[in-house]
């Protein structure tokens, strides 16, 4: 597939972050168009476009917006429909490998602000918060400036462009916690609490920020919205497969000649992206890679032709995640890489749910002794068993994500683990007793 710069189309413009540049390149045209439509028309348009959330889960954006309870005409609203609505932007990018939102917010912050405005109007909300990862200080700065410019130009504030619609947008800094990228943890954090996930349901669409109906959308998702409004749903569907269409920023990093951001239609393959990135560094060959960050099961050289869209990647046994393509070659130890990722999850587990808090801690211990050459034959089964006791047993997906790299590395590269075992332990491998089943595992 060809490169198709849409979200990245302004990146190379002179002073791309200013409102002057943005408006000169059709910026805020979609917002004016949107204000001439009804909120329901906008929700329908986004539904029809097939836009799916770019934060990893791939949930249909228009459908998410439509879940917000709205007052029915002629009735006095009660319950959630009677409450204010909120839009919260998840700009807490921190998944290892993921580096798409940060460049976007720095280079083209107004596209996010415009997407926020359109989405807010569509869900009938008057207060939106952009929750930016604390470490992303330059993005925070640029967004603050962009929001100020948008207020000054009348795109935000009271009675926007004479439409009678009011909207306030706040830029809010987090403080260093990966878990806050989980939407309910983010909401707790935004309420001034420790960022710990909530049990769902209720989902944020019914009880989100301050217990009121809330849409939480990713940066890239919202930055896509102005283009959907300008181009229409049919245009948007020209990119990639019917069930997950649209332009997508693929972040290629690691052992490639030219790491960087490559925007192409959904469904572009790793083989194509590797070619764009100049291939694996000379003299080396691809060993393993992630399709969507550290929480997505590894792929290998056998998966180079999997179309990188939500459904195809899932069918091939991984997840599209955030299209964070980390490339590792034969000089990189997959067990050591897996240990690093696991240390990350152990560090970032919020501690709320026991399987994740304790499980990630013990996974690190097991992997550490394997890497140090002190592992036992039993450890490989113990890893799997520990993963089974984490997966699906906590409030949020952090623990699940922690098991991805372990399970997939054991699946594709079990020999690499075996090679780390002392010789006598290797001899015991065939005769390892299975562990007693634990609880629901049985």
């Amino acid at each position, binding site marked *: 597939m*060809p490169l198709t*710069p849409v979200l990245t189309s302004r*990146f*190379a413009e*002179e002073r*791309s*972050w200013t409102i002057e540049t943005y408006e*000169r390149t*059709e910026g805020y*045209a979609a917002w004016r*168009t949107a*204000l*001439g439509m009804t909120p329901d028309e906008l929700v329908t348009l986004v539904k029809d476009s097939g836009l799916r959330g770019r934060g990893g889960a791939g949930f249909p954006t228009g459908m998410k917006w439509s879940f917000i309870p709205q007052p029915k005409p002629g009735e006095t609203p009660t319950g959630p429909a009677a*409450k*204010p609505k909120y839009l919260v932007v998840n700009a807490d990018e921190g*998944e290892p490998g993921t*580096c798409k939102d*940060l*460049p976007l917010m*720095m280079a083209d912050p107004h596209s996010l602000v415009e997407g926020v405005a359109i989405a807010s109007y569509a869900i009938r909300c008057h207060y939106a918060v952009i929750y930016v*990862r*604390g*470490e992303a*200080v330059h993005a*925070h*700065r*640029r967004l603050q*400036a962009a*929001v*100020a*410019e948008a*207020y000054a130009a009348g795109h935000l504030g009271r009675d926007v462009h004479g439409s009678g619609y009011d909207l306030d947008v706040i830029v*809010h*800094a*987090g*403080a*260093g916690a*990966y878990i806050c990228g989980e939407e309910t943890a983010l909401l707790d954090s935004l309420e*001034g*609490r*420790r960022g710990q996930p*909530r049990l769902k349901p*209720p989902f944020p669409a019914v009880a989100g920020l301050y*217990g009121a109906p809330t849409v939480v959308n990713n940066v890239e998702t919202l930055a896509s919205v102005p283009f959907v409004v*300008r181009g*229409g749903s049919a245009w948007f569907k020209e990119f990639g497969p019917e069930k997950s269409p649209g332009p997508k920023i693929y972040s290629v990093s690691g052992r490639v000649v*030219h*790491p*960087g*951001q490559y*925007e192409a239609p959904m469904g572009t393959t790793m083989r194509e992206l590797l070619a764009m990135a100049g291939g694996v560094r000379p003299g080396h060959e691809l060993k393993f890679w992630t399709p969507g960050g*550290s929480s997505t099961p590894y792929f290998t050289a056998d998966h180079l032709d999997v179309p990188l869209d939500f459904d195809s990647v899932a069918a091939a046994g991984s997840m599209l995640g955030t299209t964070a393509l*980390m490339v590792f070659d034969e000089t990189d130890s997959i067990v050591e890489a897996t240990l690093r*990722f696991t240390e*990350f999850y*152990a*560090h*970032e587990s*919020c501690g709320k749910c026991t399987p994740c808090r304790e499980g990630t*801690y013990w996974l690190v211990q097991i992997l550490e002794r394997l890497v140090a050459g002190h592992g036992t034959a039993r450890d490989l089964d113990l890893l799997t068993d520990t993963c089974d006791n984490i997966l699906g047993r906590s409030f949020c997906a952090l623990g699940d994500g922690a098991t991805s790299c372990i399970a997939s590395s054991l699946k594709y590269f079990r020999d690499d683990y075996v090679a780390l075992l002392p010789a006598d332990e290797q001899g015991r491998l065939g005769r390892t007793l299975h562990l007693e089943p634990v609880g629901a595992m049985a």
Partner: protein
Amino acid sequence: MSALPGSAEGTAVTGLDSSAVEVHGDLPPLTETTRAECREIMARYPVPRSALLPMLHLVQSVQGYVSPEGVALCAQELGLTKAEVGAVATFYTMFKRRPTGRHLVSVCTNTLCAVLGGQKIYDEVAAELGVHHDETTADGAITLEHAECLAACDYAPVVTVDYEFYDQQDVAAALELVAALRRGERPAPTRGAPLTDFLGVSRQLAGFSQHADAAAAQSAVDGPSAGVPTLRGVRLAAERGETAPPMAAGPPETAVFGEEPPETAVSGEEPPDTAVPGEGGGTPGAQAADAEVAAASNPAERSGAEQNHPDRPEPAGREAADRDAPAPDADGQAQSGSGTSVQREV
């Protein structure tokens, strides 16, 4: 109370560490200005407690860490207990529990940066400075930390100083960087604003500019952001003549708001090479704006009611919040939305 066995980090995430914050003499005092700024932050939100994280950044910007005094101020302003504020402060990595050096140097040692040299950089810098993770050099110049993924994997391995990026580092470059910082220099980041210091950047995260004058604030905003990896796809597309499919037409039959009709709304793809340098300047005035400190009645959220989220009953008064904020003033009241009328529960 003892920490979790085996896991130093466990103490941070579970808050079981009994010595959550250290007490130090000789700190710059938290003044009435700080208190007023706290209230200004609180006024940005429908519910004041949402201001807690930015308020902690603010007290950190005065004292270099979240001191017991800082915790107390936040607690007092928000009507929380110090334990509640401490529980939040100790959850987040960026809130420091010991005074931070003039600069915070963070070396990414997550997997990708680590294999590309980040671990070696961290080890060498730590050896050169004679400090370990979360420790400060004797001269007070640098606090060193190893960081989790900094969302710059296409620039790996990365180092940040006060969260501004120094991309594609190697050991020599990183050693030169920390040496320069110790000499009192402020090498320009690859991406980010010209360095001030850890205090300044904490002030930015509280939502205030780290610069008093508008020109410096604007130059911070204008600090570079798009390096080669960011632009690679765009440039390669231009080289190859590849573009997105053209937009045929905007959505039909829609009224358009605003004075100028968007005559260009029906456009083809944007040619990447037509860039005209934008007029400089931006809107420093808009940025700096921020005058009124909300005449804050003291906050509402009393601790009892809020423990049981998210299904707790809705306190009265919340509803009004997001509709009643006033119009921004002519200069464009920035993201604070201008405070006075964002209602608080009382």
